[in-house]
């Protein structure tokens, strides 16, 4: 029992180590790719940013507006009318610090994480990874690195969009529903929206993106030689990404709290 638990713990540590190594190696790989010939790698990166970032923009916008509305409604229903400054402050604490990076990452996992894992798994099963490597093109530089960096860029930018949309959406609801003046709402927002708050949010967004990319690439490339492994790879990619998101969220929040 203890041995089995220790085995599990060791595999988890090895797995996390592999992921961190994969993320860290994306940076030197990007330098070597740029040195050799950036065009095809840049094309994979931009395609990833497009599919993960641009195509998710609408759903992020709608979700952010709804979250802003819900948070504002809850604050006013708890604190009552006359809590204009507090509404601004609370929306920064809840949305900017926590919900924006986390919900953005969850949406990206659901939309793009599965797609990345399934695409790479399909490529592996069809022997396309071998085709690339036989051309002397390393999969790590051409397939993995631009995807990891592309997802990280997309999550970072979408997180910023989410925050802007939620804060503005919250104001619209507060203004239309409870006649909260812009001045007082903005005063509440900007009194707590410090560089540190933004840094926590952006650090989370970047880390979430890097690890979502790494997990999904890893799961996609780990499949066996049968198509039945593709949905399994996609499912594992989603579950592990979600699990790690919450762990990273906790670690980063704790780090900045201390």
């Amino acid at each position, binding site marked *: 029992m203890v041995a089995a638990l220790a085995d599990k713990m060791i595999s988890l540590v090895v797995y996390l180590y592999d992921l961190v190594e994969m993320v860290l190696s994306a940076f030197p790989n990007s330098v070597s790719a740029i040195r*050799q*010939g950036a*065009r*095809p*790698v840049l*094309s994979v990166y931009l395609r990833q940013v497009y599919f993960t970032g641009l195509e998710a923009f609408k759903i992020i916008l709608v979700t952010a507006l709804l979250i802003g509305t819900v948070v504002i409604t809850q604050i006013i229903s708890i604190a009552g009318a006359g809590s204009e400054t507090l509404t601004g402050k609370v929306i920064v604490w809840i949305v900017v610090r926590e919900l924006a990076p986390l919900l953005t990452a969850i949406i990206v996992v659901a939309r793009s994480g599965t797609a990345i894992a399934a*695409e790479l798994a*399909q*490529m592996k099963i*069809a*022997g*396309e990874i*071998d*085709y*690339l*490597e*036989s*051309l*002397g*093109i*390393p999969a790590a530089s*051409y397939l993995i690195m631009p995807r990891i960096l592309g997802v990280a860029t997309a999550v970072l930018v979408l997180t910023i969009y989410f925050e802007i949309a939620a804060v503005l959406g919250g104001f619209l609801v507060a203004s239309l529903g409870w006649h909260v003046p812009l001045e007082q709402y903005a005063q509440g927002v900007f009194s707590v929206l410090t560089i540190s708050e933004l840094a926590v949010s952006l650090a989370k967004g970047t880390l979430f993106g890097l690890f979502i990319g790494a997990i999904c690439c890893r799961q996609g490339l780990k499949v066996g030689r049968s198509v039945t492994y593709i949905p399994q790879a996609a499912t594992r990619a989603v579950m592990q990404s979600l699990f790690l998101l919450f762990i990273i969220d906790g670690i980063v929040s704790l780090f900045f709290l201390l």
Partner: protein
Amino acid sequence: MEQTVKFDKVVADEQLQEVSFGVPGGSMAAALTERQEESYLLVRLMLGLAQPLSGSVTLLGEPLGGASEKALNALRRQVAVVYPAGGLISNLKVWENLVLPLEYFSLYPPKEIEERGMAALEGVGYAAGLMELPGHLSLYSRKQVGLARAMLLNPRLVIYDEILTGLSGDQRGSIIEIIRKFHRETPGRTSLFLTSNEDAIREMPVEARIAMKGSSVHG
């Protein structure tokens, strides 16, 4: 003459048992395998994509055992493989597939890549669209693009894996003619045909038939 590829008592994946053979440099050689999977395994072993359980593989005079990934990639760049279905990447369009290695390694300026790419496609008689995805192409067209990509790389060794499989008589004739011409273009270039079809070997323009000593692969 130096051997371009040399297998010395290679054992791998239960399919190959103590296989030994050498491919003479500059030759057009063919090897008969028992199954298509064996041809694929041989290609992977030759390029260092798979490691033998025992024995050694030498490619272009360099032993692959213990070679770094960087050294392997440098060797792979001197070899071109035309896979049974062309070896194209499914999410890249025909043109992107064709010029991928040239662009990745920045071998030529963009304008020259375009000219060379178009000339290569013309050379193999490719008639389908440049912006098609490989999944929409016929097997013949995919092989043509794979062949054109191999020609663009100006390799020292070209491996044709099941190149004639699945083609009609006319298409086989056309492909053989292109390969023969391409082989003669550069003195010293080695062409190795791998096939599991005995009849296909008779059609291939081979000068040497590789005798593989081993329990699973026949020559």
